[in-house]
């Protein structure tokens, strides 16, 4: 686990074939995996929102609205919403 590494600084990632393969972006359905991460995961910040969905600006709205708008955005892109997400220690 990362937390067991005593906060060691990263060492540069070896530029091996594994990395390059993914970087080529040839993997089928990679956009689905990308959308799933970029729109639904990652650190949430409470900035001013510039998302616009179906022509409706959602500028300067709060966090709860962001979460709704992201779901809407995913639907409007033809991407599925949800699934049962389970966290494991």
């Amino acid at each position, binding site marked *: *686990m990362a937390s067991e590494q005593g906060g060691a600084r990263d060492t540069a*990632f070896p530029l091996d074939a594994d990395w390059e393969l993914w970087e080529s972006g040839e993997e089928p*359905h990679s956009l689905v995996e990308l959308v799933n991460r*970029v*729109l*639904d995961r990652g650190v949430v910040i409470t*900035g*001013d929102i510039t998302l616009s969905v179906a022509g409706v600006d959602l500028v300067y709205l709060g966090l709860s609205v962001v979460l709704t708008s992201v779901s809407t955005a995913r639907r409007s*892109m033809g991407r599925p919403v949800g699934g049962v997400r389970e966290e494991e220690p």
Partner: protein
Amino acid sequence: MLHPYCVRRAGDPAPDPALEGLAGAAVSLLEGAGLGVWLSPVERAEPTPERLREHDRVVRAALRSATPLPIRFGAALPDEEAAQRMLEERREEWRAALERVAGCVEMGVRVDWEPEAERAALLAAEPRLRETLGTPASGREYLERRRRERQVDELLQKRARALLARVAGILETGEAPTTQTLLPRPEVAGLLAQLVPRSTVGAYRARFERARAALPEVELHLSGPWAPYSFV
């Protein structure tokens, strides 16, 4: 407005001046509170596939030199002062998160199955459930049918969970932090995201191939290395 991509530790390498962010905008580094955030000026960030790819491309560029905390797409900061305030406010939380993911990358495994074949196998094993799945002739039959369909769904979920456990077992990542999503859509039994040390990506791929060979009845897809989107 400023579009934020990711958070790093102060002192981590700055973005390459040639790196292109959203719509080709330059990417800059703003440091404060022992942290750094990668930013681009934007008019508006629409969640189109192009913009999402550009966002991830910048996060990926950061990942090459040190694991960042990726920021979810969809928010913008009015100016650098707001970015600075954000770093101050989230200082403790983000420093702890950066420690947690240091030296690691996220690998993603998607398990596709044939939903109709799974359902058929389930009904073959449980004839009792199959009986009432025809056209209902009365309200009572309709309710009974609904109840049994729910049972089928629950059993499918159970099968999906067991399948993912088998995959995880072959991947031998018992200690790795894992996020699992069951049945995000009918043709996908589940998604696994695992946080692994970046030096073990090659070994992870080898074990993934072993899992693929061991489970020919389903289709396994590997993606990554990603920044730790599922672990922040």
